C-alpha cells in the first residue's frame, strides 16, 4: 500500500473512531443505545481478536498452514495457557516471547 493510501486509510479510521466516540454524547445525546447494537458491541472484540490470532498463526500467503514444526504455534500455546491461568496481559506476552526464544534456542533451524 502506498504511503498516500495508508494516510488516507488512517484518516478514515480516525474519523470513524471519533464519530463513534462522539455519537452518544453529541450526535444522539438524547437517545439511548439500541439493544441490538449494545449486544453487537460486546462481541466485536472477541470475534476480531480470535480471527486475527488464527490468521496470524495459521495463514500464510492465502493458504492455511499448520506449521507445527516451527516455534510460533507452540509459543502461542504457552501464551494461551499463561493467559488462562494468570489473566495477566504482560505475563502472557512475556511468556509467549520467552517460549519463542527458548524453542529457537533448543531447535535451531
Amino acid at each position, binding site marked *: *500500500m502506498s*504511503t498516500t*493510501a*495508508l*494516510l*488516507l*486509510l*488512517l484518516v478514515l*479510521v*480516525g474519523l*470513524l*473512531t*471519533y464519530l*463513534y*466516540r*462522539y455519537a*452518544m*454524547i*453529541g450526535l444522539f*445525546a438524547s437517545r*439511548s*443505545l439500541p439493544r*441490538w*447494537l*449494545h*449486544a*453487537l458491541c*460486546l*462481541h*466485536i*472484540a*472477541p*470475534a*476480531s*481478536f*480470535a*480471527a*486475527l*490470532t*488464527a*490468521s*496470524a*498463526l*495459521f*495463514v500464510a500467503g*492465502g*493458504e*492455511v498452514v499448520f506449521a507445527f514444526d516451527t516455534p510460533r504455534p507452540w*509459543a*502461542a500455546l504457552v*501464551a*494461551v495457557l499463561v*493467559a488462562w491461568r494468570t489473566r495477566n*496481559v*504482560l505475563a*502472557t*506476552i512475556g511468556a*509467549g*516471547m520467552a517460549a*519463542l526464544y527458548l524453542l529457537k534456542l533448543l531447535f535451531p533451524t
Partner: protein
Amino acid sequence: MAHTGTSARREFLAGCRDEAPLLLGVAPFGMIYGIAALAAGVPAWLAQLASAIVFAGAAQLVIVQMLAAGAGFIPIALTSGLLNLRHVLYSASMAEYVRHLPRRWRLLLAYVLTDEAYAVAVLRYQQRHAAAADHAEHTNATADLRHWYFLGAGFTLWAGWQLSTAAGLLFGTTIPPEWELDFAVPLTFIALLTLLLRERAGQAAALVAGLGALAFAALPYKLGLVAAIVLGLAAGAWTVRRLEQAR
C-alpha cells in the same frame, strides 16, 4: 471565579494522577505498536501520526498486523472500523454525565474517550454520584467540575500513548528482525481474547470467527478476516437468542 479556576485545576490534576498507574499497562502496547509498525514498513512519521489521529491501541495493532500480512485498503478499514465500534458503548455510558456540557467540551472529551480513560473517569462519576445522594446540599453548592477530571485522565493517557509510540519507533530501528518482536502482536491478541471470553455468546463469536479466518483464508486482500468477524458476530447473536429462549 478565581476559586473555580483552582478547583478546575485540582480536578484536572486529580484525573492525571489517577490515570498515571494505567500508563504502566499502556506503555508496552505503545512500544509494541511502534516496533511492529516499522516492521510492517510504515514510515515512522506516519506511525506516530496514527497514534494521534486514530488513538486506539487495539485498532492500531490490527492495522499494522494486517498491513504486514499484505491486506488491502478495504479489509483493513472494515476490520478496524468494526473493532472500534465498541467505543459507542463508552460514549453511551458517559452520555448521562456529560450531556449538560457545552458542545465544545463534548467535542473535546469525545477525542480522549478511550478504554483506559473511560475506566478511570466513569469510576469518578459513579463515586461522586453515590456521594451526591448522601450530601445533596453540599454538591449543589459546589460547581460540578468532574469534566476537568475526565480531561486530565484522557490527556494523561494521550500523552503516554504518544510517548510510548515514539519510544517504540526509536527502539524499533535498533532491534534486529531475528528478535521477532512482531510476534508480540498476536500474543497481545491472545491475552486480550482470554480476558474477554467470559460468557457463552462471546465464546461462540470467538470460536466461529477463528475458524472462519481459516475457512476464508483464500479470499484476496485478507477479506476473509472481515467475513470471519461478521460470521462470528452472527454466531454471538444466535447464541444470545438461544440462551434467552432456553430460559
